[in-house]
């Protein structure tokens, strides 16, 4: 993605503001995995993992890792009081059953209808689907965190996706290094612009029309 740690953390910090007390949340790998570090200590959230954990805590101290207690990415985690373990079939039953309030995923492209492409670049990278399709289709709110443009400087927020879709009409909110964009019924709505960018620069870097409806700048 080529974004520095500061920018990745700024995106994660903005995404954390979408999470409210009592929510059940699943975080994808990459920038989404940083979101839990930015939550207010006043709120209690149940983090869900596809392999079969509800109630994940943060990373263990070095030397305290338990190889049998890992997140869906295979990295050690801890649990919080009230946590439970279950099999992966149940973990996905929770997802498809509509029990997840928010999923925060990475993205390659998002279209103005809310279509998401994030699983394959034909001829280049074929990692597989994992649990992304189920999360994108079934979580109550889908937030995509990504760089605003690709490494060639081309927009990733488009009228139509060019890459194979993960799921149609699923994305609610996009948070990038340049802006916060809502997927409305009639296309994209620009809600916030990140410093040091201007509205004009965001518009220029976006491959679809933006309705501008700003409510102050949350990147502070």
């Amino acid at each position, binding site marked *: 993605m080529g974004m520095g740690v500061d920018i990745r953390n700024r995106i994660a910090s903005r995404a954390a503001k979408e999470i409210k007390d009592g929510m059940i949340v699943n975080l994808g790998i990459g920038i989404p995995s940083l979101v839990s570090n930015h939550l207010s200590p006043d709120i209690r959230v149940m983090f869900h993992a596809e392999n079969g954990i509800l109630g994940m805590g943060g990373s263990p101290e070095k030397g305290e890792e338990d190889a049998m207690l890992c997140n869906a990415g295979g990295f050690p985690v801890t649990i919080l009081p009230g946590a439970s373990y279950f*099999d992966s079939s149940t973990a996905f039953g929770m997802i498809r059953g509509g029990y997840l309030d928010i999923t925060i995923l990475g993205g390659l492209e998002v279209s103005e209808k809310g279509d998401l492409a994030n699983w394959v670049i034909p001829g280049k990278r074929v990692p597989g*689907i994992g649990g992304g399709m189920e999360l994108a289709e079934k979580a109550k709110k889908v937030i995509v965190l990504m760089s605003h443009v690709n490494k060639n400087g081309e927009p990733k927020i488009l009228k139509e996706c060019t890459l194979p879709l993960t799921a149609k009409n699923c994305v609610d909110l996009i948070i990038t290094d340049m802006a916060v964009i809502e997927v409305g019924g009639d296309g994209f709505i620009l809600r916030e612009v990140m410093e040091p960018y201007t509205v004009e620069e965001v518009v220029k870097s976006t491959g679809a029309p933006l309705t501008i409806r700003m409510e102050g700048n949350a990147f502070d």
Partner: protein
Amino acid sequence: MTKVASLEKVLSYITDECVLMYGGFGGVGNPPTLINGILEKGVKDLILIGNDAGFPEIGIGKIVSRERAKKLITTHIGSNPIAGKLMVEGKLEVEFCPQGILAERIRAGGAGLGGILSDIGLGSMIEKGKQKVLVGGKEFLVETPLQADVAIVHAKKADNYGNLIYDKSARNTNPVVATAGKITIAEAEEIVEVGELDPESIITPGIYVDFIVQSKGVDWKWAWE
């Protein structure tokens, strides 16, 4: 009656070209002693069914990266670049399935169902070649059940009837995989007498397990170590 068996005996069921299903997620919950035994025995052309391709030197990844499998039905191979390379070179056929749907297809295979109806992947590459049905005016894909000649799982504790208890997130796909093998082999960290496990705490009833082998523990270095 005890189902505890030697590694040599259980490996006799795992032969060239057999359909081998494995429990585990990102290497965690893959049975290390059985995997090493399969490698040492020299079995080849396996058809593997499981959540992911592990890491190159972790878990089921060791079988994939040493080219012992000809086909892999899975959800994700991103953590094992060798699997991707073999796929591109045409040495490994890979069939991708959404993660929770793979688990449900395995569950269906073990539970005697003719398949499941799923709306995951409608309108994506996943629907290719799949039958569609309308239920209550809503469209679903027919996802077929999966069974295996041999299923291998990892457990924290087994009694000698094959009742199993798992270890935290290493439970993952193991309970469904245990149900879907014509022969199911459980590798357990600890084996106890019948009656020593609390029936309320048993996750996999022993009816699903044919053989139990003593685990020698994980001998690989984890990705985070």
